[in-house]
């Protein structure tokens, strides 16, 4: 179910321990700290291994997240905005990561540009509540999605390289 590469990525992201969602006042603050720590570690790992691929930050309450992710294809860097809300049922349900600018450009998306996850993601997430956090959703949800969809969208000419 989980390939070697994913297993390796996962082993480098710290697991979380507080089972709390955005409606749990103080416990949520604790959870949010764990989220940030896991994310910081994950980004640092990526930088060290030369596979840096996203940045994220949140509002003060930690309920709304936004940032950027990028994908290298034929030595060109394609960048996209990321946004998502933390659902009231988090962490029982994973966040629904969206790339709004790709909304309507691929069938592998739900309304609002929410990415369509594989059949494996939800069971894997369910089995790891509350240990998985946002960093895990990025590694197991968004990273494989980009790897499949972006080359395809580039090939079809639906997205083109923008020089900044």
């Amino acid at each position, binding site marked *: 179910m989980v390939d070697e590469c994913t297993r390796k990525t996962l082993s480098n992201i710290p697991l*979380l*321990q507080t089972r709390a969602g955005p409606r749990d006042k103080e416990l949520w603050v604790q959870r949010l700290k764990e989220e940030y720590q896991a994310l910081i*570690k994950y980004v640092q790992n990526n930088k060290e291994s030369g596979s840096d691929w996203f940045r994220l930050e949140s509002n003060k309450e930690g309920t709304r997240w936004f940032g950027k992710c990028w994908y290298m294809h034929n030595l060109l860097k394609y960048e996209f905005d990321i946004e998502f809300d933390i*659902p009231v*049922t988090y962490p*029982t349900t994973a966040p629904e990561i969206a790339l709004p600018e790709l909304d309507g450009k691929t069938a592998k*998306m739900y309304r609002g540009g929410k990415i369509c996850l594989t*059949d494996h993601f939800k069971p894997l997430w369910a089995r790891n509540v509350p240990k998985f956090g946002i960093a895990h959703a990025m590694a197991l949800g968004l990273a494989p999605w980009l790897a499949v969809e972006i080359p395809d969208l580039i090939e079809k000419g639906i997205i083109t390289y923008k020089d900044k």
Partner: protein
Amino acid sequence: MSALDELQAKIAELKNELELQKSATRAARERIDKMSAEVVDSNPYSRLMALQRMGIVKEYERIREKTVAVVGIGGVGSVTADMLTRCGIGKLILFDYDKVELANMNRLFFTPDQAGLSKVEAAARTLSFINPDVRIETHNYNITTVESFDKFLNTISHGGIQPDTPVDLVLSCVDNFEARMAINTACNELGLNWFESGVSENAVSGHIQFIRPGETACFGCAPPLVVAENIDEKTLKREGVCAASLPTTMGITAGMLVQNTLKYLLNFGEVSDYLGYNAMNDFFPRMSLKPNTQCDDRHCQERQKEYQARPKVIAEECAVEDDTPLHETNEWGIELVDDSPPVAESTEASKEVATGLRLAYEAPEITTESVPTVAAAANVDLDDLFAQMKAL
């Protein structure tokens, strides 16, 4: 035909079209204060009130005192709302944050001219036109976000026809796990009965599940129970699409949902706890699910304790007035299969689900062993973490 005749015919045709246009914009009928059982062409309730005359339903008119919240006005929810409206439900509260799109036209209810309108607004217009007696309230937001969830809780706990009463029933017609869990959380907290419904992403199966907090398994008690379609995963092609849909499967699922809603609200027949539909072989598996005493939802556990403490009402014998034994003579030679649905305990990961059903995935293993790496978050300051993240 002379040119004059042709012109006259053309004028008559245009007049007709104009009349049609005009009638489409005005209400088709006035409101009716009391449901009448009178059998006349002009009575929209005569065929429903006939249920009472035939002894199926005791007091059909009680439907006018009932409030139903429908969450998700898509392929299943819109048809559900349509059916309830035609049945003369007292009040409908509709929730959705999506717009009508041309891509929805393979489903029932919405029409192409409504593309671009919010689903709740478009639905409210059509429904009020079909039956002006139904009170319709619309809510255009995503119930899973922190801000909207409180509005949702407040609406379903105070939205009943009588002031400050909860709705009688919540119907989940959403298409995603997050929204189902949000409804589950709300109904467990409020102790409100609700139906979960769903259609599979390959469009060839559907199900409904009646959840009475504390009494039957909640949506979080076990992994979702779905219809086993026996389609080889390897032959199911997923490339390039998220989900397929058929108006048939959605219509049948909405029918199962509203049928059981009516049985529950008007107290007739037997309400199914879980009813599946497999379109591949036209099989309708049925079962009951007991709550999981280890459920992750604290409110589910509280509702379970309350339910255990309550004196049990002994199920009323089916009111069959005819006392000759059923099926004494069997002139058609039909064999009955055991028709009482099997009951599963979600505690044991519901390994024994009824034939034709399966759990969407294996139940999570409950492990207490210490996890290898945990972010030690003891004395860290959140603002420092924000800053660290920004500096990366």
